[in-house]
């Protein structure tokens, strides 16, 4: 999988690159408008992570260029602007997703995977992870072929953890993943704990191995 990260903030770009490279992605970085334009024109990517505010131009202009090239590239806008209307406008212009800063790397990773999956396998959108099968279209989970009855929240957490497998996902990231960007939910670490507990119980009842590991109370890791 080939990613292009268009981000001018050096330290943030470093973190993103480090996270994705350890996930066996091929990652390239463009830190200003001109470099980004050059890369977009000359190479193909599976997904582009696009910052809106760039030195030398706007990310939205780049988005128009990408869409003009008619390559089947997924685009995720990453912006500090954080406005609901900006998101709608970005998506209208053809972006596949929108993430406002600050975001968790695990969240970005999950979104990137989701975009790539949608682009590559439209229709048969399934995740196979050992004995666990997730049908993204039906939003259904099967363990060794048996359907698993779980709530929407538990489903979301499961997909999120599997998307970030072998990585420690903080409770904070999970809480934000569940509650969304602008929701004002406090105290939601307890919710995460409760939901994970239920999810683990249901998985073990159906005969699934215990892949969800607790990491010192700071987060969880799907370890297959």
């Amino acid at each position, binding site marked *: 999988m080939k990613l292009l990260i268009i981000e001018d903030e050096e330290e943030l770009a470093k973190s993103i690159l480090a996270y994705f490279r350890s996930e066996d992605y091929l990652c390239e970085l463009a830190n200003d408008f001109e470099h980004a334009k050059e890369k977009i024109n000359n190479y193909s990517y599976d997904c582009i992570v696009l910052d809106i505010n760039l030195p030398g131009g706007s990310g939205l202009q780049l988005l128009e260029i990408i869409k003009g090239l008619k390559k089947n590239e997924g685009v995720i806008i990453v912006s500090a602007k*954080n406005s609901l209307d900006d998101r709608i406008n970005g998506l209208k212009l053809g972006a596949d997703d929108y993430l406002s800063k600050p975001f968790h790397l695990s969240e970005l990773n999950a979104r990137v995977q989701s975009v790539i999956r949608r682009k590559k396998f439209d229709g048969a959108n399934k995740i196979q992870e050992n004995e666990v099968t997730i049908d993204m279209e039906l939003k259904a989970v099967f363990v060794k072929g048996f359907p698993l009855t779980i709530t929407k929240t538990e489903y979301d957490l499961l997909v999120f953890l599997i998307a970030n497998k072998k990585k420690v996902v903080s409770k904070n990231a999970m809480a934000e993943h569940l509650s969304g960007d602008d929701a004002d939910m406090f105290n939601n670490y307890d919710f995460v704990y409760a939901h994970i507990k239920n999810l683990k119980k249901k998985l073990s009842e159906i005969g699934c191995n215990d892949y969800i590991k607790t990491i010192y109370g700071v987060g969880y890791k799907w370890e297959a």
Partner: protein
Amino acid sequence: MGSMKYRLLNISMFYQAMFSVGLLVLSAPVFYYSIHKLYLEDIDESLAIINQEFILKQENKLTASEISYWNKFNRDVLILKDEKQVNTNEFFNQFIFDSIANELEPYRSIYYPIKINGGNYLLLARQSLVETEDLVKTIVWLFVIILATLLIGLFVINRFVSGKIWQPFYNTLHIIEKYNIENAENAEFEKTTIYEFNELNYSIEQLIKKSFQSYKIQKEFTEKAAHEMQTPVAVFQSKLDTLLQTKDLTAEQAEIVESLYKVLAKLSRLNKNLLLLAKIENNAFKTEQVVNLADEIRNILAFYNNKNIQFNTELQVPLLVNAHVGLIEILLNNLISNAINHGNEQTIISLIGNQLLIENDGTNELDKNLLFKRFSKISNLQSGNGLGLSIIKEISNKYNWGLAYSFENKKHKFSIKF
């Protein structure tokens, strides 16, 4: 003036009335006595002339035997024997019985010493004051009536003219009352022909312009500051995410990372809320769509499926509102998460008619004055940042929804009429 409020016009009228009545009350007797005095002087003069005339024309011709004859035909100029111990050459007032009118009548009199045939006599000259008294009274009455009419007339004209003159002032006041800095940049005043009011209007216009500028700068500052903070927070968070992936993370390190995450989540939330408030104020959420409230609530409740929440809805027709769907989500989320986080027992959500009611248990009533103010920490709960309710208020205001809070039977009740 105490705590009572008076109209400017009424105050000036009050003082005018006080002055007018005072003037009337004081001037009437002064006028009366002045006129009266003038008349007495007049009469005194005519009595003196009678005396001079008598001395000139009669004193030498008259004989002692003719005195009784004189007195018979003269009513008011009498010759008396000088046997009375009286003061001569001095005017005095006296009452004399009038047998025709059958009452005592006022007279002005004077004794003059005269000599008839070498004998000492007194000449009594007198004049009735009845007619002059009537005349004086009539004049004073006329005066009072004219003065009173004049004052009443002035009063009425003043009232009418003042009302007209002050009209631009009331117009200005009305415009200021209606002015809302959040909606309008400038207030427009009508031009008036009165210099002072034009000056006033101009000053107010300038004041409003300056206030609006400050308001705008302040709003922009909040938004920009919050924006600028997003990137460093994002870097911070990404570094924590990276740190968390370290191979040999110890429990001690994990604990530090977790507390940093918590602080960061607060900072990030605070920043997002500030941005959101600034954006609502800057009217950034213009798109509207029809939202089914019951559906939105159910979506949110799905997240809390293991919490003690009761959702009552008795709707014949679904409650639909026209609003920005993102703001509706935020509004409902804030209200519901507030109730869940602050209550220990069941949270009750009711959607009845056009009203949403959210109840949770509590011990004390919250301060209504502080409740919706920004950063007013009304509860001891650590998690809140003091903006959640402000955002609810701001969104309700935007769409003119009636947001209310009450505390009954140990329950906090927040309601919104859509």
